């Protein structure tokens, strides 16, 4: 009966027998993409981290849901927050999954070498993107780029300095740029070369290396893979994966018992929003009236990107109303798009002293919004002011604002923060408890 003691799972796969061929590797790649849909990544947590601390959005019901959104809004996040625990856990889950594929793909034969390259590039892109989110959110974080065989070996691992993590991010993205394909109709839902270039441009911009940032973003423009489209088409469900979008995390409603949709609609729409019999929104990310007032009557984005309830309460309208279940919105989460590239380039050119080029990029965005060319003062500061305003109006509720203010070093002045420690979020208390080698950020 000794044979009977060897029992292998019949309904789940086992790592020993997996990752053996292209099909299985593709499955693993899909599972890496799947982590981007998690709560702690682009479902709700990263958008909230990127938006709520900014000056335009706020939490209408800050005490609700354990206060995790309200804390971001009020700069009093506690290490016990479930939201930051999700960011940490889900991001690292994605990183580890990417590590697995990167580790295993080398020995696997693919029908097309280009596909293999593309998959590897996708993994590097995703890993870099997640680390980029982590360093901007927490500062120093433990860097793991190998497939973990025994998790217990990682007790005692300390936080890697931000600068070293950035080296890895840059190296990953550099490699990805070389591996990823040019965007076409078949691959537009995946990671394309311009996505890695855009992200790398953003990384360099964050590091204030304007020249390098410019070179990568210029490449995006020159690729002609992307263009601005009508404002009311950018976030339209009929027009998903359109040319303006560079990288999105895809969601779909009504699949797998309503589990593939996004929860962003429910979480961030005002509590008073009723669309037919669709109710149950939670109000964790509405917009301030004075911000809504910045949209002029002519602005094509008004009542498209943003709208108000009858009561006057303003909200982000980029996420489509779900059809059956409130937590199952069909909208993809847009991570990178061409308008962001143009506005980053405007900012870079302005910083490099090329005001005219900056205004050209700015005008592309203004004209799409029906605002006409920029006619204001052309000094660096004024142009920056207009670029900043257009970033707010164009990219509202796409999870950029807080990180923009951080990289520009303006979070304290714009938001009135006096305590430097508020510029980073605390590490999750559960992780400090799990391994004392992780030292909490100061002030928490």
């Amino acid at each position: 009966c000794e044979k009977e003691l060897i029992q292998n799972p019949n309904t789940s796969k086992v790592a020993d027998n997996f990752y053996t061929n292209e099909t299985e590797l593709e499955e693993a790649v899909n599972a890496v993409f799947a982590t981007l849909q998690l709560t702690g990544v682009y479902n709700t947590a990263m958008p909230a981290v990127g938006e709520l601390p900014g000056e335009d959005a706020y939490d209408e019901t800050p005490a609700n849901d354990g206060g995790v959104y309200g804390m971001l809004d009020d700069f009093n996040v506690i290490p016990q927050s479930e939201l930051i625990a999700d960011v940490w856990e889900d991001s690292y889950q994605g990183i580890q999954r990417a590590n697995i594929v990167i580790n295993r793909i080398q020995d696997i034969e693919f029908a097309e070498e280009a596909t293999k390259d593309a998959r590897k590039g996708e993994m590097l892109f995703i890993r870099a993107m997640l680390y980029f989110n982590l360093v901007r959110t927490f500062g120093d974080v433990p860097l793991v780029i190998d497939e973990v065989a025994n998790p217990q070996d990682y007790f005692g691992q300390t936080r890697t300095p931000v600068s070293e993590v950035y080296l890895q991010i840059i190296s990953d993205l550099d490699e990805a740029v070389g591996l990823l394909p040019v965007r076409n109709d078949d691959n537009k839902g995946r990671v394309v070369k311009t996505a890695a270039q855009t992200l790398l441009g953003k990384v360099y911009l964050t590091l204030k290396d304007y020249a390098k940032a410019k070179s990568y973003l210029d490449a995006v423009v020159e690729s002609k893979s992307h263009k601005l489209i009508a404002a009311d088409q950018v976030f339209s469900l009929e027009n998903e994966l359109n040319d303006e979008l560079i990288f999105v995390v895809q969601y779909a409603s009504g699949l797998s018992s309503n589990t593939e949709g996004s929860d962003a609609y429910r979480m961030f729409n005002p509590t008073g929003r009723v669309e037919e019999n669709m109710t149950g929104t939670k109000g964790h990310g509405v917009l301030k009236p004075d911000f809504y007032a910045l949209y002029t009557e002519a602005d094509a984005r008004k009542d498209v990107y943003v709208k108000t309830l009858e009561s006057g309460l303003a909200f982000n309208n980029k996420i489509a109303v779900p059809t059956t279940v409130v937590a199952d919105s069909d909208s993809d989460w847009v991570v990178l798009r061409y308008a962001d590239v143009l506005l980053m380039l405007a900012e870079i050119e302005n910083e490099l002293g090329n005001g005219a080029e900056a205004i050209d990029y700015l005008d592309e965005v203004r004209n799409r919004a029906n605002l006409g060319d920029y006619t204001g003062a052309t000094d660096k500061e004024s142009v920056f002011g207009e670029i900043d305003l257009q970033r707010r109006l164009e990219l509202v509720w796409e999870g950029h604002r807080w990180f923009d203010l951080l990289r520009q070093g303006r979070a304290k002045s714009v938001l009135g923060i006096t305590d430097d420690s508020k510029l980073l979020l605390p590490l999750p208390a559960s992780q400090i408890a799990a391994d004392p080698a992780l030292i909490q950020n100061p002030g928490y």
Partner: protein
Amino acid sequence: ANSTYSQNKISVKLENTTIAHFIDEIENSTDFRFVYRVKDVDLKRKISISANDELIEKILRQVFNAGKTEFTILENQIYLTQAKNTPKAVNIPITPLIIQQSISGMITDENGDPLPGASVVEKGTTNGTATDFDGNFVLEIGPDAVLEVSYIGYKSQEIIVGSQTTISAQLEPASAALEEVVLIGYGQQSRSKVIGSVSEIKSEDLQNVTAATIDQQLAGKLSGVVINQSNGQPGQDSQIVIRGTGTLTAGSNPLIVVDGFPLSEGSSLGSINPNDIKTINILKDAASAAIYGSRAANGVILITTKAGGLNKKTTVTLDIYGGVQQQSSGMDLVDAYQFAQFLTEARNWGYVSKDPTNRSESDPNSVRVTKLIDGKQIDGRELFLTDLQPYLDGQSGLVNTDWMDQAFRTAPISNYALSISGGNDKTQYYTSLGYFDQEGVVIGTDYKRYSASINLESKVSEKVKFGVNIKPSYSIENSVDQGSRSNGALGLIPLNSPFYRAYNADGSVNISEQLVNEQHEIEGVRINGTPVENLVATSNEVGDSKQRFRVFGNTYLDAEIIDGLTYRLSLGGDYDSYIRNYYYPISVGSYRTPAPRSDAEADQYKQSKVNYLIENTLTYDKTYGDHHLNVLAGYTFQKERIDLTQVTGTGFADDNVRNIAGASTFTAISDMGIWTLESYLARLQYDFGARYLLSAAIRRDGSSRFGVNNRWGNFPSVSAGWVFSREEFFPSDGLVSFGKFSASWGQTGNNQIGTYGSKALVTGSNYVFNGAISPGFITTSAPNPDLGWEIASSMNIGLDLGLFNNKLNFTMAYYKTNTKDLLLDVPVPQQTGYDNVLANIGEMENKGWEFQLAGNNFMVGNLGIGFNANLTSYQNKVLALGPGQDRIATGRDQLFVTQIGHPIAEIYGYKVDGVFKTQDEIDNYPHLDGTITGDLRAVDVNNDGVIDSNDKVSKGTYAPDFTYGFGANVSYKGFNLSFNFTGVEGRTLLDDDLSSLTESGEGFGVPTTYYFENRYHPVNNPDGFLGQPNFGNFSNSRKILRSSVTVEEGNGDYFRFRDLRLGYDFQQDLLDKLKVSALQVYVSGNNLFTSTKWRGWNPDGTSSNILESGYTTGGNYPISSTYTVGLKISY
């Protein structure tokens, strides 16, 4: 004897019938009763007889004349015996019987009081009589007679008559507790020889508690066994902890063995009808349990079900009880008027405290909505609810719904058990039918069980016998998830506001009124109240039914190969089929979503489990003079397969079809698991003159669950005992009549890690590309090929004493268990991509003392008195955790701390000593960030000037310091009164509802009366010491301290009046008239009274995660008080 009966004339007419039928006929039509041994009478012999008004002797003579049977008539009893070898004369003497001597006498008990009904029989004959009410007897006996005097519960005596004509005999009570046979693994043993620690309880002691399952009946009855009835919902199992929790994250279920068949882990005891149980033996120490090896670390529960008996008359027993239950909990919530007061304070203070300089309580809502801060509109929770004004003004007659009254009911419970048992000289049988029906005290919950039992054993020959035990049962349980804020009645009690009615004026259920109204707008701002559905609607309309059909049992063959050597082959099986159907209709709202909702929710979960077991054992039992030897060797193999599918349906057009069939799209999950266990076992038991006892056992287990490098484990044990009272030097007439000292050591294992715990599993995680599912699979659990057994080494030292001729028995034991290689789901640093990894890590110790005292058969006149008491102490200490890890802090706010040198899951919290009443106090006292006035004040325990996690202190654990139980029974003539108390000391709980809803002071839930009366409010309650009500500006300091303030050391202690039972057994004369053999009526009550400080639902509540023991939630179904009336009748 005066044969008055024998003068009666009877008629009988039978053609070509058997002796057996003849006997039945006579017994049915007359008062005569036959007494015989089956082997002495040829029951199948055919006869014909026709008699009209004949003397019995004459009829019997006709019938037995030609046979090999002699008869003797004594009163109404006819004794049939085998004819002596000497050939009988054709006319056997009928009357007078051979009478040579008449003897009379009196039989008394140990106190000299007469014993009515004692049996006096001439040894070697059927000649005998019973004592009368005064203990007297008269008997005519042959020469050289020896009298055997016996009485149930007393030691039999033999008296040589000699020339005496009167005899007085005083009987000594039998030391029943010590003589009785106790079940041990794969065998049995007399209690006086048991060296390990085995607790036994009999059905009579169980039935004092009316419950669906035996676990509940066991609570408080035995030392070393804690039954946590953590879920009082009908049909739910209790948590059974034997001598402390010995594991951290592996399963903590004891192994349950029914009639020799080990059920798979976590098996519900609900499939066993308590009425079918004869005894329960609990193997507590490793030496007793080690024979069950890798599954025994949490203790072993051996259940023996009722069986028939050889040569036993067929008995039909009907046992019926019915009664009512009521909830008993510590929960007490405020009424509508107090709630209006609280909510107004909470909303006002939430508004004012955000900007005290610019805001005032007296601001009307029209002003409030203009008081923006940093451009942000106010939170709707800062509005004053104008609707509440009439309540604040104390107007009478307003809606004031007591939702506890709506959620709870007086619920019926009833049980019907019918059993038939008996046997002839070869075959014995027991069969039963049971029906149990319990409505829960919470509306929408109920449980029904239909069960049967068949136990049959038959001799093929003197050397070979076989048997079958089969137990089918079918149960239906209805209950929604009580903890849910969307549909559970209990979870909704603190959220359903007393301002709303449960029913409309027309009697229909009031659907979604609260959901809609709590989201209404004032001045264009939603009030952000508590939008939940009416619990009456959810409880009645949301369907969640669980049906289980299960049949388990075994069949065995015993063959005595040579004298003393027995081979047994046993084949066991367990089939368990479970279906759960869930439906949440469109027509009932859920949290934040009023009815009609856009879709219904439905799923169906089906699981089937097939388990089989093959056991081969050889037992050799031999006595050579004073040497007694018992050797056991065996091989067993067990395999289980579980299949499950879960189908979720969405896209319901309406509520017409209330299950997944009404859905338009489906998703399904399918899973299957197999585990196997192969074992070799051996045991040697030896005793010398029942005085020196020795036992050694070993089991070798191989399990499919463990890594390839660690598949096999060995589990040895040794034990020794000394019955010093049997030594010659020991005074035989002293106070101490029995004394035994024993010591044991053994190792047991735990393998409850799930079926594929050692594998790195690759599981599904899908993405959508272009709106279509793209299946993803990736490693989600880390591999561990070294994963092996959790091994518990335990030591037991015991002392057993019998006093006053063993009427008083005292047992004490010291136990100490070290568990090594703990199967721990270690929380690992998440940068690895994993949250936990299952590994053999760490070490833990459990130790304590057990005392048990039992007194029986103490007589005061006709009053019989018995009593029992038990006390057990528990000390648990973690000795080691993972490498580089000295503590695991987990659970709510990481307040559950398991660290080296401390017990598992200590609940940490800040010491809170009141509230900050002024800004000045805050400024001059260490405080948490964001503290505002009215917030709780934590004590700076380490005096370092800041409040941080270093100021948290341990407030104790869920695992108690000690548990105890005591009770007594008193009998007088036919009356029997018994009662039991039980208690738990040193238990701490953290309740999620108390800390986040009912005592947090946030305005979302209805507060407890305790909170309301002690809340701080500068004007309305300036002496309050709990946080000021605050809705909408609930500070971080409150969030951090709200759990601490409800966690007090020992808040889960309780003392409970567990059961009270008064029964009356009808006396013989009435039974004769009713033609029944026994009739008992009784009334009983359970959980009549509980003394506890606990303000939540149930002080036995806990999370099933051991690292978070003592964490309870709002769904914690309270234990009910039960009052029943019952009747037990046997034919």
